[in-house]
């Protein structure tokens, strides 16, 4: 733990292959360091291995060699159950779109992020209170809106609900996978403002994948996936 005090995420000599065959899709990263509290954009075209990289960071995929260190915790040394729990407690995830369970209300979708870890041992009322506060901060208020089925929201609203869910457990690291690509330019910028405001307030580390240079320009640091990753084979084969 001591060795990575300053890093939120540190990947070293990591190699991941989808299968043992030599032609199969593989991704190699020599070194990737993301310091705590930073906003980092990962920029790369589709097919540059971003889904795989996110899967590795979130602990649903395991590297074949090397280390993935999140806040001093070695992911590759954990069991899959431990990684699930770790993800529930440490990471907030925002997808490109369709982030919400269509059959839950807006509020329940946010609270969902608190349900799979023991760390967030709040009462239902406390959970709802936390969720409501965040939704409010992200510009979503009104009891009727909170009780609405998630599937009835506009895309922009859905993304903000997803952001609220990512932040609700106060995770130290937020992973966002092109959360703005489905939004128009105005909404994009508005969404990023809200995202950054929350990130600053909580001191969260934000790692966001995007293919949009303009969006990437608003981050502290923009890394090119093609520079970091060494990719062979096609991810289309078995992904």
């Amino acid at each position, binding site marked *: 733990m001591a060795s990575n005090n300053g890093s939120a995420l540190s990947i070293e000599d990591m190699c991941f292959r989808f299968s043992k065959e030599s032609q199969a899709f593989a991704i190699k990263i020599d070194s990737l360091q993301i310091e705590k509290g930073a906003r980092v954009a990962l920029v790369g075209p589709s097919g540059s291995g971003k889904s795989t990289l996110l899967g590795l960071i979130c602990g*649903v995929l395991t590297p074949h060699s090397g280390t993935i260190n999140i806040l001093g915790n070695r992911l590759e040394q954990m069991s899959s159950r431990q990684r699930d729990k770790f993800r529930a407690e440490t990471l907030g995830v925002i997808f490109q779109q*369709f982030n919400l369970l269509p059959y839950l209300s807006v509020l329940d979708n946010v609270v969902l992020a608190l349900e*799979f870890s023991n760390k967030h041992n709040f009462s239902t009322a406390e959970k709802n209170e936390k969720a409501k506060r965040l939704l409010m901060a992200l510009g979503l208020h009104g009891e009727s809106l909170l009780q609405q089925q998630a599937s009835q929201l506009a895309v922009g609203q859905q993304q903000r609900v997803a952001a609220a869910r990512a932040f609700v457990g106060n995770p130290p690291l937020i992973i966002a996978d092109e959360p703005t690509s489905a939004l128009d330019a105005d909404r994009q910028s508005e969404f990023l403002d809200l995202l950054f405001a929350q990130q600053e307030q909580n001191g969260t580390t934000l790692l966001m994948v995007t293919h949009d240079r303009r969006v990437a320009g608003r981050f502290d640091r923009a890394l090119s996936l093609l520079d970091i990753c060494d990719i062979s084979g096609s991810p289309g084969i078995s992904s």
Partner: protein
Amino acid sequence: MIILRLALHSLRNRRITALLTIFSITLSVIMLLGVEKIRTGTKASFLNTIAGTDLIVGARAGDVQLLLYSVFRIGAATANITWKTVEDIKVRPEVKWVVPIALGDSHHGFRVMGTSSDYFDHYRFRRNQSLEFSSGKRFDDLFEAVVGHKVAQQLGYKVGSEIVVAHGSGRVSFGANHDDKPFNVSGILKPTGTPVDQTVHLKMEAIAAIHVGWENGSAPRGDDIKSAKLVRQLDLNPQSATALYVGLKSRMMTFSFQRWVNTYQPEAISAILPGVAFGQLWNILGNVEVALLAISAMVVFTAFLGMVISVLGSLNERRREMAILRSVGAGPTQVFGLLLSEAAILVLAGICNGVLANFGILYFGRAVIENFTGLSLNLELITISEAKLMAGIFVGGMVAAIVPAIRAYKLSLSDGLTIRT
């Protein structure tokens, strides 16, 4: 807990499919429970066709054959028992009562049975229930008859109706009728669900009376014809009986008395214990019921198959949902649990609905069923054996649900957080 809540919400979201699945499980449960209830009801009613009678004595024959003709009026006796033998049995110290029956004639396809008035005292069915009259009373006069519920219903008889007995047991009697000696219906019995419903009861003496002059086996001619009035003056004491229902003073004596009957020298007769013979007969008939139960089980299986197909079909569109769940920290095991919980809810709802619907049908339909078939079904929400059956169905449903749950587990493991459409 969260998994169960998600399962409920998810089912509500797909309520049409869910309701249809529950409906099909409900129907199959109703069918299975219905068959089970009828099966146990029929068995109980069958085994209780005759109660209170310790032994049935007839000409020496197989147990089942003796039971078939003496109780079900199916087939014919190999021989009759002479009245001398009947008297010998009556005076045995073990014997409490003897009711003779005489078979051989028929009335529009219904069997005619001669017996004594004691028959109405001693014949018991369904755990000690006595015969009751829906109208009229026992036969008193020589030419009076008591008819079963079905006889009266089908032939439209009322107390006072006149009936003619046909010689022999066929539906068509080839003109050999005892039409010179018509009978009046003195009473009609309530339905019993036993062969009594289909029997015309006459006095033992009446059987003798209508056969006066038939000693050589064909209708009497010329001087042999005796009018009904004349017949009354003859000695009509019965000369023989087809079988005897015997009640003993103590159950303990059953086997020694049976041995005495079976070794009775003057005539070849045998005694059967109705319960034992019924058991033998049920072993033959019982297979039909098992087949019915097997068919119902297959209907349940089909309902589960429908559930599995609908869940499997929806899995692809639910991959996104699984990725979301995994992103907030759910493991593949929890995704597995979610699918299994959904199935558990569907199956449980189906079982509960089925049990309740069955109870409702029984509650409202019991009287009708009893009236039409004589089958008396117990009004119980669920018996222990039915509860076991339902538990079996639940386990079966869970086993079936494992198939899509495993598929979801594998999908969520390979998909991870990658959202696919």
